[in-house]
């Protein structure tokens, strides 16, 4: 099993009446609600938490990309990953990911990921999301009906750029480059492991299966609701005759809160979970799915967006969120059992643990994170022993890595040249 501690970086200062006074947390959210000076503190707090998790035995620490979004303050996940690369040591940097269709030219992603891989000594796990409709279409203006074609082309360019050892010309429809020749290249060969966050489109299932990428379902709906979608993925893995059904072909994001007891978990975390589910997920349904963004095949399959109106407008109480699996919460014992249930039912080897939730303060987040790392994670490690050696979907760091800040003594004119000091 691989556990990644994931931080969405939510803005923790949305007012109590946010839902009543605002139509959406995303796209056209009131700019006045963002306070840059507080932002300074928020970013640094969140970076500290990611670094903290990196020291507790999580396999990875994770970031992702959102735009104009108060629950995801990372328009550039690569900036955050770059900060983490220097302040962490042996933990994987999981960037889930950079929306490759949004970069012009998309070669930028190949370059930045290569930089991250080099700086971190091969610790990058790369993500290539199509991006949500909110990000891709409404915030970044990509034409919905052309988004997937653009994505495909960007992917082809990046893969070729990483694989090629000489400059080549790329004559795409959306990107034309005479000399593709990125410097630097990634450490990991032929390329860093690639995870594809998806929301249930068949094309993305097939894309992952055909390229040996890991499919990640990053939902907030929890594992019980996520089961149908993941089953759809595994059915597809079988249908397309993939060589194996390794659980590492899949990942799942789960909101998790651990306390000493079930009661403590509710007492400590309920208000922050409520903040997240009832304020941060207040997305105007008109931004959920631009027409043309999803393919007809996917809509006909009946896999509708998690942002569909029916889930958006009710206040969700703690008990319901816990019962329906949106949140896995409780004592280490309770959480272990439910996690095991999740892992087996969804058959997922990669877990993205959402543990910084809404406006949760640092000390509570650390408490929950430590309990998970010390009392839950070790009890789940043994699952899927037959795939314990499957390294295809994880990073392969260099054995000898640079130590950040390891400068020699200042230059001293008195010392003879070339003599060790």
């Amino acid at each position, binding site marked *: 099993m691989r556990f990644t501690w994931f931080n969405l970086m939510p803005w923790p200062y949305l007012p109590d009446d946010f839902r009543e006074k605002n139509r959406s947390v995303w*796209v056209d959210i009131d700019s006045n609600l963002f306070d840059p000076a507080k932002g300074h503190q928020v970013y640094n707090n969140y970076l500290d938490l990611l670094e903290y998790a990196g020291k507790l035995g999580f396999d990875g620490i994770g970031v992702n990309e959102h735009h104009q979004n108060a629950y995801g303050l990372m328009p550039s996940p690569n900036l955050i990953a770059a900060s983490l690369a220097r302040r962490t040591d042996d933990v994987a940097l999981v960037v889930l990911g950079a929306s490759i269709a949004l970069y012009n030219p998309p070669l930028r992603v190949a370059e930045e990921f290569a930089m991250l891989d080099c700086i971190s000594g091969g610790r990058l796990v790369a993500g290539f999301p199509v991006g949500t409709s909110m990000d891709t*279409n*409404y915030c970044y*203006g990509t*034409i*919905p*009906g*052309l988004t997937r*074609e653009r994505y495909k082309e960007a992917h082809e360019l990046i893969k070729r750029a990483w694989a090629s050892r000489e400059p080549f010309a790329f004559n795409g*429809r959306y990107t034309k480059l005479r000399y593709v020749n990125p410097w630097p290249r990634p450490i990991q060969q032929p390329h860093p492991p690639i995870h594809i966050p998806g929301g249930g489109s068949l094309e993305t299932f097939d894309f992952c299966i055909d390229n040996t990428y890991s499919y990640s379902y990053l939902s907030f709906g929890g594992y019980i609701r996520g089961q149908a979608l993941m089953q759809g993925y595994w059915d597809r893995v079988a249908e397309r005759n993939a060589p194996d059904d390794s659980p590492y072909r899949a990942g799942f994001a789960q909101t998790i809160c651990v306390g000493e007891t079930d009661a403590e978990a509710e007492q400590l975390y309920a208000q922050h979970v409520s903040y997240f589910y009832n304020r941060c997920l207040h997305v*105007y*349904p*008109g*931004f959920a*799915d*631009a*027409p*043309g*963004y*999803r*393919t*007809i095949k996917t*809509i*006909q399959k*009946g896999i*509708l967006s998690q942002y569909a*109106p029916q889930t958006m407008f009710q206040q969700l109480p703690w008990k319901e969120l816990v019962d329906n699996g949106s949140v896995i919460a409780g004592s280490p014992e309770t959480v272990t059992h439910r996690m095991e249930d999740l892992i087996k039912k969804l058959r997922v080897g990669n877990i993205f643990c959402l543990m910084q939730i809404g406006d949760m303060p640092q000390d509570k987040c650390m408490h929950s994170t430590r309990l998970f790392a010390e009392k839950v994670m070790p009890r789940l490690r043994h699952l899927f022993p037959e795939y314990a050696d499957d390294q295809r979907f994880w990073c392969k760091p260099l054995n000898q890595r640079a130590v950040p800040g390891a400068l020699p003594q200042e230059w001293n004119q008195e010392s003879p040249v070339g003599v060790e000091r």
Partner: protein
Amino acid sequence: MELKTVQTERIPVRYYEGGAGRPLVFLHGAGGLDMDLGFLDSLARQFHVYAPLVPGYGDSEECGELRDMLDFTLHTWDVVERLGLKDPILAGHSMGGMIAGEMAAIAPNDVSRLALIAPAGLWMDEHPIPDIFAMLPYQLPPYLFYDAEAGAKLMSAGTDMTDPKFLQAFLVQNARQLGAAGKILFPIPERGLSSRLYRIKAKTMLIWGEGDKLIPPVYAQAFQRAIAGAQLVMIPEAGHVAPFEKPAEVIGAIARLQ
């Protein structure tokens, strides 16, 4: 009107045909032709009407090869060609008006009569056109209809938005139709037409509902300034869907092109 199919180089195209008289090609707006069938029937009393569907609309096949404005413009010229028409009256509503305007600008010697009914295609920062791609169905009527309440009733007639089957069918249709329209209308319904309008040589009739809240009449004046000799007919008590709300007045204005 009869629903038929004509094959272009790329794709079978569905079109309505009916009536007799001078040939007239009518290009529909982003909402499709469903609401315009009555209007087309009336129009067919004076003209030989051809109303092709943009690929992806109605029961027609989508066409992945249509990606940008030039593709749409040339595709529609292909349809005219395959229908065997020479210099038909070219009429278009909203998105269809944008396409018709482009066709007349790109081939000015092939279009002598042009009717643009509340066409899209221009953008003024001080008069932003509302974003139909971010609207839920129930939010549309005030932007489309002069009488929003009657429009809402009409649009929701026989529909139950809570029925998952209906919702799925609605989403599929929306994805096909607005997905196609989005290629020239998303996120801003402007693709450089303003720099080409000067090329139009056709006798041009601009037809606009006085109460158009989607593409407000200030755009009518902009089109009129940009197309030499264009005449403007404002239609009282009509919104953006003037052909539906005031078919007789719209047809009367088109007839002035004869």
